[in-house]
């Protein structure tokens, strides 16, 4: 019986592995649009750190000088990310993607980026 299961397992494995060659589906996701998503995510991370810094400052955990210095650095980092994202979108605009599947995926990714992040501000 063990041998039978083994043979079946092998056949199943070969089928699963060969499937993508039989049924072609198009480009693998990844590319300029996901870079923009990544930049937005990083900016969101920075904003969360800004909120946390404000909370810490109001609780007296961070002194005035440290607050100013950290806040400035966070703002500059966020601004740089924003600048890069803007440059990226300009570059994107010049080259519409030829492959319909990839274009659809880009639109989905863009829509997700606006809608998906939970609409919740961390409490002050």
């Amino acid at each position, binding site marked *: 019986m*063990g*041998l039978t*299961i*083994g*043979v079946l*397992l*092998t056949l199943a*494995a070969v089928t*699963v*592995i*060969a*499937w*993508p*060659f039989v049924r*072609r*589906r*198009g*480009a*693998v*996701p*990844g590319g300029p649009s*996901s870079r*923009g998503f*990544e*930049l*937005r*995510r*990083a900016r*969101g*991370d920075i904003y*969360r750190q800004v*909120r*946390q810094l404000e*909370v*810490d400052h109001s*609780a007296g*955990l*961070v*002194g005035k*000088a*440290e607050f100013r*210095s*950290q806040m400035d*650095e966070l703002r500059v*980092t966020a601004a740089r990310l*924003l600048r890069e*994202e*803007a440059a*990226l*979108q300009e570059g994107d605009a010049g080259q519409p993607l030829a492959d319909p599947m990839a274009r659809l995926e880009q639109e989905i990714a*863009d829509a997700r*980026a606006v809608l*998906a*992040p*939970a*609409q*919740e*501000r*961390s*409490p002050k």
Partner: protein
Amino acid sequence: MADLGFMAIVLGLGVALYAAAGSIAGKVYGAAELVVSARRAAYLTAPIALAGAGALIAAFATHDFSIDYVFAHSNRVMDREFIWVAFYAGNGGSLLYVTCVLAIMSAAAIHLARRRLADSLPYTTAILMAILAFFFLVMVVWANPFSHTTCPGPGGSQVACVPDDGRGINPLLTHPGMWVHPPLLMAGLAGIAVPFAYAAGALAAGRTRDEWADAARVSGIVSWAILGTGILIGAWWAYTILGWGGYWGWDPIENVALMPWLTMTAFIHSIMVQKRRGMFRMWNIVLLNIAFVLAQFGMFINRGGPVVSVHSFAGSALGQVFLGFMLLSLVFAFGVFFWRYRWLKSDRPVESFLSREVAFLLNNFLLLGITFVTLWGVVFPLITEFASDGTVTVATPYFNRVNGPLFLGLLAIMGIGPVMAWRRSSMRSLGRWLLLPVGLAVLAAAAMVVAGMREPLAVVAFSVLAFVVLVILEEWFRSTRARARAGGNWAAAWLGVIAGNRPRHGGYIVHLAIVTVAFGVVGTQFFDQRADLVLKRGESGAVGSYRLEYANLKIEERSDRTAQLAHLNVYRGNDRIGTLRAWHAFYPDFRQASVRAGIRSTPVEDLYVVPTDFLEDGRLVLRASVNPLAMWLWIAGPVFVIGTAVALWPQPALEVRPAKAQVAAGLVRGTA
């Protein structure tokens, strides 16, 4: 069953190799279908490995002694529940377990990162699958769990046979701790491959921004937590079953599990600096490389046997194979690192000695220092064997003496680190922060001395622990008070503080767990008392403030062992405060004794009793000890797990407008 099992591991080898090669080829030549196919192959390795494991477990359940592994690790009288332990009791089976775990973790790692790390994922897949293929290969060629049993035949040869009964399971493994300690330990060590693969894959793909950092952090913390829990449970196992009242012997096998854990501890701290300030990128890659190579070193020591230990699997030619793989890993890891070295530089320097960055650097320095000392202690006896005639032993006293101060320093940093600000801390704010904790800690030290504590090191250690706890409590107090001002009770406010920054506060809870472990360590190391008692029935002897009376002895015979259960009454002064049962068994087939200590545990101290000898005249020889604060070592376990869970609990994302809308608004406003 042997057929299915062997087919599974051969199939697994083929599929893993295909997955590795296909991922790289598909990525390099832009063949998308090949990449997808290779990814599916990677997912497949999990059910294939599980099929092999299922075959082995079924063989145990049906007492299939035609398989050598089943013969060597089970018998007909064995309780069925120990089949799980027998599964990984030996070389072949534990390799199969590691393979299953690694296959499952790899599948999860690939699947969860398929969108965010899409660019580097084929390389990550290839790395994980190459490691997996190695384990399959070892099983197929050198450590086949499904090889046939052989018996001595005519003329001194070995012939295939099917014995009636097996040898049985090693008695040291028949303890509840053994259900979780080896599986967690091996899973934690194997899991280090995942953050390593994320990082090395990102480097290979040329993406040296920070996308891999989040994935590496989460997977790193998960495997670090699993490994840490496994180590702690192992200490508990040693405490209750090895019979000498200790929980950590600086055994080479223990050490090789500790070293990757320490390195990963350094990583999970240092990655925070990368997330917050974009620094230490190179160093984080180096840490992952070191951790991964040390995990391979652990496999080599564990299965190659150049060092002697209560733990190791019997020495075999397998050692050279694992040594080779470890060296290969070393070359590959640092090769990729130096290839992409320039891309990892950060444009931000350290600005002040009084900064959280420097605190993290010190934390890393001490952790790696302890790792180095431990490695040196493990390796040194081997060096002297080669270099000179005599051998030296490097055991507990050495490690305690050299690592002790480093651990103390680490605890001190644990207290100071949270107080430091990023970039630069002013002396004024540091002073404001530290006044209360330091003052109270010094007061505590004075109080201990006045109360009669005469161990200087213990006084210092306890004070440092108090300091660490006070710093955390101070931050929690201030944050909670600020939050409660806005309305609501303090309990809700505190929970809100924790939930507001989960990585940080989860980290504080983990720090408290470490403090708890240290608390138990200091108590048991400095204040333990021991007495060897020889008692007739009815007689009693003293240890610490207790009196132990030998009440009764019960003898149980089983086909594979003879066990004696001693009943003891415990007195303090004239009051009887309880009874203890201490158990001792001898297994003739294994020539091994096994004990279960009688332990009476209170938060203040453990009363620990083990029977060591049964004399012919009916007297009982007992080893009794009082271990202060031992219970806290185990209380730390759940606290550690809770802290890790809080730290990993995902935080909701903040709303962020896309750049187009942003820039339009910014243009309207002009410059800031």
